[in-house]
């Protein structure tokens, strides 16, 4: 079932120097049980695309649909995890996790139970009363994750969630995301991950959308058919990394498009 349909989306911004077109004619779907990654060079609009998907911003042309209906406001069935964690420093961990639920007008006792559940599931037990300043980067991102999962979104959006973390912490968090993802009792139904780390995309996702330089279009959708957990050193993994990397650096010729009329990369 298609959860999200992105159909011929353009996005431009007005500026002093005229209109800046970030992306053009972006089309792809996100289906139930998809773990989708979006990669591409800096400035190609990956984060903007996530905002368009969630309804934080509107496309200049084209449509974003969620379960067949246009996304014309912030979609409550999606939740975002941010690179910079975006926690409220004056709230405790439990209060931060509860925040999205309060906005949904849930009764207090239901919120408390839900917070407990997702605090526990993400390993934040023992930190409920802690403030963000007491926490390491990895722990803060777990709070971000717990907060997003607590609203039980259909789609989890992640905008460079591991970029602000040191390499070892990122390693453990990626593994935890996969544990949570493969637990059928937990939300979400689909994940859209934006990352500049190609290996990370291939390690985690079922499909990688490769975007070109700005004004960006979709260069390719690369299917990752490897069983998880994936061995980063396997020939198949290398081959996929190479393929995605070449697409990005060569930048011009979509692999899936017919060759006629297009210059060779």
């Amino acid at each position, binding site marked *: 079932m298609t959860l999200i349909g992105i159909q011929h989306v353009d996005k431009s911004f007005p500026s002093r120097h005229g209109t800046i077109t970030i992306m053009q004619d972006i089309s792809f779907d996100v289906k139930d049980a998809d773990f989708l990654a979006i990669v591409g060079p800096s400035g190609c609009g990956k984060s903007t695309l996530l905002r368009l998907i969630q309804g934080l911003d509107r496309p200049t042309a084209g449509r974003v649909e969620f379960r067949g209906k246009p996304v014309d406001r912030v979609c409550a069935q999606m939740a975002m995890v941010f690179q910079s964690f975006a926690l409220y420093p004056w709230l405790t961990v439990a209060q931060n996790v509860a925040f999205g639920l309060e906005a949904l007008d849930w009764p207090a006792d239901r919120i408390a139970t839900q917070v407990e559940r997702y605090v526990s599931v993400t*390993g934040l037990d023992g930190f409920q009363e802690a403030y963000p300043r007491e926490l*390491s980067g990895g722990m803060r991102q777990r709070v971000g994750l717990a907060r997003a999962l607590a609203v039980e979104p259909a789609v989890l959006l992640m905008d460079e969630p591991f970029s602000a973390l040191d390499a070892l912490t990122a390693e453990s968090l990626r593994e935890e995301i996969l544990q949570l993802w493969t637990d059928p009792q937990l939300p979400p139904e689909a994940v859209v991950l934006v990352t500049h780390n190609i290996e990370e995309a291939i390690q985690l996702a079922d499909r990688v959308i490769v975007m070109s330089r700005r004004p960006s279009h979709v260069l390719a959708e690369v299917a990752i058919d490897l069983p998880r957990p994936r061995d980063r050193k396997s020939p198949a993994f290398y081959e996929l990394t190479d393929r995605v990397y070449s697409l990005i650096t060569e930048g011009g010729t979509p692999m899936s498009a017919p060759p006629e009329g297009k210059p060779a990369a």
Partner: protein
Amino acid sequence: MLGLLVLLDSHHGSEDVALLADDLDLEIDEIFPALEYAEILQFVKVSDGRATFTDLGKRLVAGTIRSRKAILREQLRRTTLFKTLVRALEGAPEHQLSDHDLGQIVSLTTTPSEEAVQNIINWGRYADLFRYDADSHRLLAVRTPAAAKTGGGKAPPPSPPAGAPPPSSGKRAASPPAENPAAKMARASA
């Protein structure tokens, strides 16, 4: 530390330390603290520049978010520092220790820098060995009902912040008594 164990797992459980670091484009000294904790807690053995999982380490990394917490708790509990902290809390008035007391105890095993103390607090909280109230700056014992509730709760292994090692002095002494860790684990798992 957990990230290092996940990384080692992706290298099939045994690897040259230099190559581990290389995999994530790190310098060896950047993975050293994590490696040190992993050794202290008996999840890996390092010899001749090579890190290898112990059985406990393999079990930790193969486990779920929930089971990892339990294993980590058991290993931390055996270290001089955390044993001392837990005992101190048991004996303290209202089962609370001030920041000052905490600093004194920490200084028995390592330099009580702000970062080190925060790390220690977070390791202990994570492993459900104690609680901390940042508003009153007090370490608190985990009460039995809470301990029963949270000790059994699922929890992912939040990589305790790489910083000062939990128990550094008596690092060698902290190697638990000769008892087979696996046997202890088996008894400890509720």
